[in-house]
């Protein structure tokens, strides 16, 4: 029966060529939407690694103040902030704070060991208070403390990496604590601890290895103009105004701007979802057209083959058998379109486009194919009922 159907539809490929093309287009777009959806969902399920509630991002602008005086002013700012009621903790940070539009990355490789893979990793300069501010969780070793103030100036700077970085740098499963790694500028870092994860890009960004480099309280070179501040729950605009006024009046010419991390997260989400949103609308449009096309072709078909269907009924075919034939033809048609679409979709995992895991592409292909088959079945229900309703006597009499 199935072979029969395939031969039937193949003979009619010219007449149904347009519909096959539509199904092919719809599959490609559905595949794109599915890939994006599966990718985003997979990212969303990975742990974020930090808490962003009640954390504020503070940007400092020293204006025209000479470089030499800036460190002293920064100390004043930190002192005032830490002394303000409502502020729990203040940490210095580099510009690539969570949900910001900045990022900073480098490549690391282990110094010891036989297998020394190069691992790309996000890179953060942070002060020791960051653990308290962001609620980081450690799984091995320790976080930065007073001991690091002495070694910071030494050859090997203290560093904390995430579990993902540890797994990639030491694929044999060894613990990273105590080992040394080197970056592209040939700077050495000693790993003092391993945190579970840290995804500053947000819930929808792809999980990447991360590394924190220690910024001591006496450091004048890094992390000078961005602060992450944890405030007491319930702090609002009043505290923000007070902090802004304190910085403006207490320091010569420094201006600050304060943003809550939760607000920055919403802005980033909005921007990330615009393009997928447009893709979904285009997809809905294409699916609608495929449905319309299927209806039209089916109805045309049934009208043209009234005689043939009448003969089949007269020969004893049940209504169910007729319905099944119509449904079968439509599914074969869909398969032709899907076949073309799969040829295109297969290129994505084979060529490794966009650096996305092949599993995502395969899941998206299955979802798209399943979706189209479902659509075709639903579209075939009414016309197949029409076909099954043809009375053999009436149909044959028209000849």
């Amino acid at each position, binding site marked *: 029966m199935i072979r029969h159907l395939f031969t039937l539809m193949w003979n009619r490929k010219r007449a149904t060529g347009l519909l096959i093309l539509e199904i092919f287009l719809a599959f490609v777009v559905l595949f794109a939407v599915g890939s994006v959806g599966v990718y985003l969902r997979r990212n969303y399920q990975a742990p974020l690694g930090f808490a962003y509630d009640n954390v504020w991002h503070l940007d400092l602008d020293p204006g025209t103040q000479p470089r030499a005086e800036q460190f002293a002013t920064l100390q004043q700012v930190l002192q005032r902030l830490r002394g303000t009621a409502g502020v729990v903790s203040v940490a210095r940070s580099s510009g690539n704070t969570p949900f910001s539009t900045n990022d900073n990355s480098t490549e690391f490789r282990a110094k010891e060991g036989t297998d020394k893979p190069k691992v790309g990793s996000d890179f953060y300069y942070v002060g020791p208070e960051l653990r308290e501010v962001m609620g980081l969780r450690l799984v091995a070793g320790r976080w930065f403390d007073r001991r690091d103030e002495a070694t910071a100036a030494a050859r090997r700077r203290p560093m904390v990496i995430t579990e993902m970085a540890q797994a990639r740098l030491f694929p044999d499963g060894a613990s990273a604590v105590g080992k040394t790694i080197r970056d592209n500028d040939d700077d050495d870092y000693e790993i003092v601890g391993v945190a579970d994860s840290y995804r500053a890009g947000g819930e929808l960004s792809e999980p990447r290895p991360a590394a924190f480099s220690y910024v001591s309280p006496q450091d004048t070179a890094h992390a000078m103009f961005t602060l992450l501040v944890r405030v007491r729950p319930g702090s609002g*605009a009043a505290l923000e105004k007070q902090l802004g006024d304190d910085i403006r009046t207490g320091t010569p010419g420094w201006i600050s*701007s304060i943003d809550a991390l939760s607000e920055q997260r919403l802005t980033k989400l909005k921007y990330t979802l615009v393009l997928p949103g447009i893709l979904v609308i285009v997809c809905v*449009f294409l699916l609608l057209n495929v449905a*319309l096309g299927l209806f039209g072709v089916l109805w*045309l078909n049934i009208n*043209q083959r009234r005689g043939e269907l009448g003969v089949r009924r007269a020969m004893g075919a049940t209504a169910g058998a007729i319905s099944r034939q119509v449904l079968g033809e439509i599914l074969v048609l869909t398969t032709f379109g899907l076949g073309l679409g799969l040829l295109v979709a297969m290129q994505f995992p084979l060529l490794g486009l966009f650096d996305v895991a092949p599993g995502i592409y395969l899941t998206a292909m299955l979802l798209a194919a399943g979706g189209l088959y479902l659509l075709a079945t639903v579209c075939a229900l009414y016309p197949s009922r029409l076909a099954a309703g043809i009375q053999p006597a009436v149909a044959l009499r028209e*000849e």
Partner: protein
Amino acid sequence: MLLNYLKLAWKVLLRRKFFTAISLFGISFTLMILLVVFALFDYTAGPHRPELRTDRLLFITRMKLVVRTGGSSNGNVGYAFLDQRVRTLKTPERVSLSQGFFSTAVAYVGDQRLKLDSKLTDGEFWQVLDFDFVAGRPYNVSEVRDAAHLAVLNETSARRYFGTVAGAVGRAVVLDAVRYQVVGVVRDVGLSRINSYADVWLPITTTTRNLRDPNYMGGCQAILLARQAADLPRIQDEYQQAVARAPLPDPKVYTKVVSYANDLLGSFTNRTGNEGGPDGGVGSLLRLLLSLGLLFLLLPALNLININVSRTLERASEIGVRKAFGATAGELVGQFLVENIFLTVLGGVLGLGLAAGALALLNASNFFAYSQFALNGRICAVALGIVLFFGILSGAYPAYKMSKLQAVKALKGDAGT
């Protein structure tokens, strides 16, 4: 005769309610998407407040310095460059200089924080554009010259800061710890009018930046109002001559200064790198949009053709009888086209309704700040045009096929091929 055709069309549509319904759905959905996209386009680049007289307005927004070793520097234009070379142009009726892109100012009201988008402008800004003042007046040229700390707020910001609109005039607003006196309140300007959009407008002379910085690139733009629409090419030429006369900033580094005065649509297409040339690449953009629109229409049209062919096959006996009684092919084609256009017009009306709903949803979601998208005359005209085009496109082939039916075969019931 037309009335008969319409009555017939209505009866034919009712015969197969299911297929009529899905055809209508397909047409209205396609039309809804096209109209929403066109509405977004119209509200960004069409004549709306404050850029009401778009046929007389030119915008200088981008400056490009071509680097000798390859590549270029792009950005908004420096204030001093505009002041020296654009204010002195003779052909425009009026020239206004303003900040190129809005910045943010923070205001604290009670225990609330307000983030307001602010734009620095000169006094001529209000004469070149048509803002809708609900209270007070704009600051004028002499007040800007004196660097008076005056502000014009939009309605929503006045309501959020003071609780009232009319009572806001004369009171003080503190932005980034600087005090300004509110001198006027305007109706909200949508974010899509990016050249003039802001929550609060301030005199450009109150800025802390150096307005005399000789750097050709800076943060400013110029808006020019021509005396009449025909003057636009002359103003563009005069500006090109002024740019050609400007000395190269650093001949060892740069080889060319590129800047154009574009109309409103051109200022958008040229927003990145001035690659569009003098007309802003508008021509190629419009061609691209038109071809995309056509592609969008093609798919539903082809589907409709299929459905229409089935419909005509069902009416084969009726057509056969009419032909036997002497109806010409032309009459039959005309009848079928009328029926098809009737269907597409119905779908068009539904599509207009859906589009109005979709635009209202967009406004309510505030995705584009202060958007007030609505169906206006231009959008309805475009809808009518699309519907007629669609009707003819999807009706021509089935009509032709129908007229070719042989009367004898149709009456015998052997019409299907």
